[in-house]
């Protein structure tokens, strides 16, 4: 095993373990915790046994293992962007709801209030 493989597998296994630990401590939901652990485990396997990616790639009709890893990386990145966008929309919505409720609870001027002093000048 090359130095890169040792370091790569070590890091991937560490992240897989961290994903599982975060799930057990309820810092990650069960589905996303399992998904992250699976992604890191797959990365560890692919780094440790590169020939496996070649076999898998050929099974899927792709000529090279590196191409399979590249395509998976692109797909994973796009899926990540999409999930972040969905999350961002939710956060934006929550901020708006908060800002709205604050505005409604503390109007600058209500209908039955006298005009501000400067208006009477």
């Amino acid at each position: 095993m090359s130095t890169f493989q040792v370091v790569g597998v070590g890091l991937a296994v560490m992240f897989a373990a961290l994903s599982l630990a975060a799930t057990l401590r309820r810092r990650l939901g069960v589905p996303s915790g399992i998904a992250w652990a699976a992604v890191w485990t797959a990365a560890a396997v692919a780094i440790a046994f590169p020939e496996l990616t070649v076999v898998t790639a050929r099974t899927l009709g792709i000529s090279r293992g590196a191409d399979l890893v590249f395509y998976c990386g692109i797909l994973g990145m796009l899926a990540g962007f999409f999930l972040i966008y969905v999350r961002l929309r939710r956060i934006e919505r929550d901020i708006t709801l908060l800002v709205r409720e604050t505005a409604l609870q503390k109007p600058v001027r209500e209908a039955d209030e006298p005009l501000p002093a400067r208006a009477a000048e």
Partner: protein
Amino acid sequence: MVMGAFNEASVIGEVVRELRVHHGQVVVVDDGSGDQTALRGAEAGAVVLRHVINRGQGAALQTGFTYCLRHGAQFILTFDADGQHSVTDVDRLLGPLLRGEADVAFGSRFLGEAPGMPRRRRILLKLGVLFTRLASGARLTDTHNGIRAFTREAASRIRISEDRMAHASELIDQVVANDLRYLEVPVTIRYTGYSMAKGQKASGSFGIVLNYLFRKLLGPA
């Protein structure tokens, strides 16, 4: 009357005063302005709500809707704060609602007048009309006009979730989806240097379409 306002201190007072002469309560939602929009609106006699940070015109209008509904308004109108609408059009919009002919009245500059409208703006607006017709099926001649009127019932069934400019298309979608009766009323839009500078930029259209499509795909935020 609901107005979303962002940095409109120089014109908001006059617009509010004009409206208040004939048309009841005006609710200004100051959308996180950095100038004295809120103060000028309050001085002119409007109810003023203030977003502590800028959330966009759609968010401001929904805040105004919620306030009006909580305070028992029977009719709600939206009106741009930059002074491009004509106060005399308010009665034209309210008429069909008062007579029970519609639940929502949209102002149309293409049925009315829009002196000084630049050609590029006309083309852009027409593309917006085409897009809305394809997307929601609404047969309107002007889909991005800020002057509109709603009955209480209609406003209570609408929930604007698009905070920014895509709210105009969302609003039409919801009118169609809720089977609300709608019509268009000819109105006048005055194009001034000020309103052109404040208005929607052509470059923003791409973002509006993108937001619209994402909402169709994902549902309201």
